[in-house]
């Protein structure tokens, strides 16, 4: 599914072909997305595989880099979330929980939206997953699915178009966890901004959004960097933020859990200390320039 040309686009610095397990996981996410869209269109399907899946695959859906990136990020998010245990006092101490009753109504609303979105995202059900899509990806997916049913040429094809329009108009990308987190990060008061550097203090979504905001790299790509094996991308981001080795190793352990063994940790610590903040920022700049250019005015 992830042919090498696409893999190079999605993993610019990767030397390995994505594993079969990853491909299977991505396929599952995409199948859920298509199933969610079909449900939104009123397609009756009791089966595991969406009705339009086969034709969509043949017509290039699995080569849509933006959708694949979304699916890969959800997969990464799920894996990180499994490692990060947030419950009890830790949850209440996290920034979104604290800001939900902020005296600043706008900030409180952002925090509320984020909590709602994060909870919805955890459901992993097709409908919930569709709600996490950015508007442009949902638009792409809806019309791809509608086109499949239209191609059937039956009398119901017009009703699919109408259902597609309804599904789109009911969608609000601001309800997606990443969008809600991006808004909260953007409008976060200066006094709270330091907390963004600590994943324990802000939770995974907000932490990823903080990094995305700081390095101007898309939120989904940050999630993949955090989950990437080996952990060089995360180490680079931690170094670029200017964290000391002790904090960085603790953040690394927190986000990557048992994936770091005692034998590798000292070596990583050494590499981290040898890397200058400037070099780390330069490398991240290269990642960013690969994704989006900055244009100069006047």
């Amino acid at each position, binding site marked *: 599914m992830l042919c090498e040309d696409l893999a190079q686009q999605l993993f610019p610095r990767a030397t390995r072909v994505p594993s079969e397990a990853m491909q299977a996981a991505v396929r599952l996410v995409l199948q859920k997305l298509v199933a969610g869209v079909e449900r939104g269109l009123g397609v009756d399907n009791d089966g595991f595989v969406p009705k339009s899946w086969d034709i969509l695959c043949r017509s290039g859906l699995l080569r849509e880099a933006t959708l694949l990136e979304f699916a890969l990020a959800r997969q990464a998010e799920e894996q990180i979330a499994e490692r990060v245990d947030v419950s009890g006092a830790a949850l209440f101490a996290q920034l979104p929980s604290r800001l939900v009753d902020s005296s600043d109504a706008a900030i409180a609303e952002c925090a509320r939206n984020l909590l709602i979105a994060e909870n919805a995202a955890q459901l992993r059900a097709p409908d919930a997953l569709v709600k996490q899509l950015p508007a*442009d990806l949902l638009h792409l997916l809806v*019309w791809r699915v509608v086109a499949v049913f239209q191609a059937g040429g039956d009398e119901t094809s017009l009703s699919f178009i109408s259902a597609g329009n309804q599904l789109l108009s009911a969608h609000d990308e601001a309800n997606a966890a990443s969008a809600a987190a991006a808004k909260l990060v953007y409008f976060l008061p200066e006094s709270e901004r330091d907390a963004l550097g600590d994943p324990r203090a802000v939770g995974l979504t907000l932490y990823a959004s903080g990094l995305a905001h700081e390095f101007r790299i898309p939120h989904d790509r940050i999630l993949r960097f955090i989950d990437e094996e080996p952990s060089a991308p995360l180490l680079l981001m931690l170094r670029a933020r200017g964290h000391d080795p002790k904090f960085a190793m603790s953040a690394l352990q927190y986000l990557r859990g048992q994936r770091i063994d005692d034998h590798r940790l000292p070596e990583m610590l050494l590499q981290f200390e040898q890397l200058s903040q400037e070099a780390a920022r330069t490398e991240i700049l290269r990642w960013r320039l690969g994704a989006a250019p900055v244009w100069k*005015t006047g």
Partner: protein
Amino acid sequence: MQHLPTRLALPIKCVVAADGSLLAADSAVRRLHFGNNGVEGGVLAVPGLLELASLCWRIGLRLERTVYIADKDHDLELWVEAEKQEKAVHLSVTGWQERVATYRPSLPPPQTTAHFEYRSALPSMHVNRSGIILQASASLVDTFCCSAIAEQFDDHFSVVGYGKGLIALLQQQAEIPSRIKIKHLPSGRECYALVDIVRLETGIVAGARLVFLFDDPAQAQTGAAGAVALPSHSGMGLGRHFASAVRQPLGRILANAETIGSELNGSILEQYSSYAKDIASAARHLSELVGDLEDLDAIDKPDFKVAKEPVELGDIAQRVAGLLALKAADHQIELVVPDQEIKGHVVGEFRRVLQIALNLLGNAIRYSPGGSKVKIEIDPAGPSLSVIDEGPGIPVEDRERVFTKFERLGRSGDGGSGLGLYISRKLARAMGGELSIGAGEGGGANFTLRLPPVDPKSN
């Protein structure tokens, strides 16, 4: 990093028309627009905002995004809400952050005062001074169902209301309005296009960039969406009815068999997993056969055409080797790929060249003994791409027969359909090239694909 108070008490507003022109704006946006060589009533010259407006217009949904702008000695980070209304997109900037610029790219000087580049969702086309279409967005190719790249613009389109074609206007350096109405000659469809004349430093017109605007956004959408379900050669008996009828159940078999085989829904007995993998393998084979039959249906039509675009054979070699690396490993075959420095620049349709190369390499892997090598060679002088194996080879008297339809040379049960080489040669010839067979050094087969070289004078 510098963070200043960001939330604006009063949002900064601007209104952008469907064609990207700035209809109205508060002073802050006007400053950015004019600072970037924008003109009154012209296309919004702030790339990030224009991109957001274009996306909002195209998909018709309300959007809230961060927009980055490099503004003189610092960067701007805006929080922008975009909403499509009847005839325009309304942008509302509710957050305004100034940040220390971290990067200043050294861009070449603008080619004209009004020229700027942006990554837009709008379909566009580049036409050189001689009227040759150099590049077109994929959605345009889908919408107009044409393979017009490297062909004359005037052979495919006319400028409505002008006695002369676009080329004549360009060559005379005549005053071309920024917005023209053009007609697609084969289909008779009309639409508007924004014309951005590109001049060299000497002032001579180098060509034009046309940004296509569809009155009805669904028109462009239909083109793109239609292309999903109906490939360019659809509408024929086999392509539309047979292929889609067979693919649906086949795809379901494949998906279910793969799901069961990979035990995604829970573990099963090993032998059942193996059966499921066999089913998946058979379904994949059938699916490939359906694809071959569909291709066969398309290329046997008299009006079958391929695009003419620059293709680099070295790149093709690297890609096919990557795509089939696992298959080669399964067969214990070592793939030998050419150095990345070796290039072969030809003219052809990228996906078709890739298809031929995949067929050749797939055959070589399929028919070579385990432990042998399969080499891909590029001859930059040819230019050609060869796939050489160490298999039993093909006797001289049978070499032309392998290119005939359904010819298997007595083989069976190996997953082949007898159509691949027939299709590949047809495709090679449709691109003005040739696919031939010879013998490799060790007696194996040597398939060579030759395609017309890129004209060194062309761009």
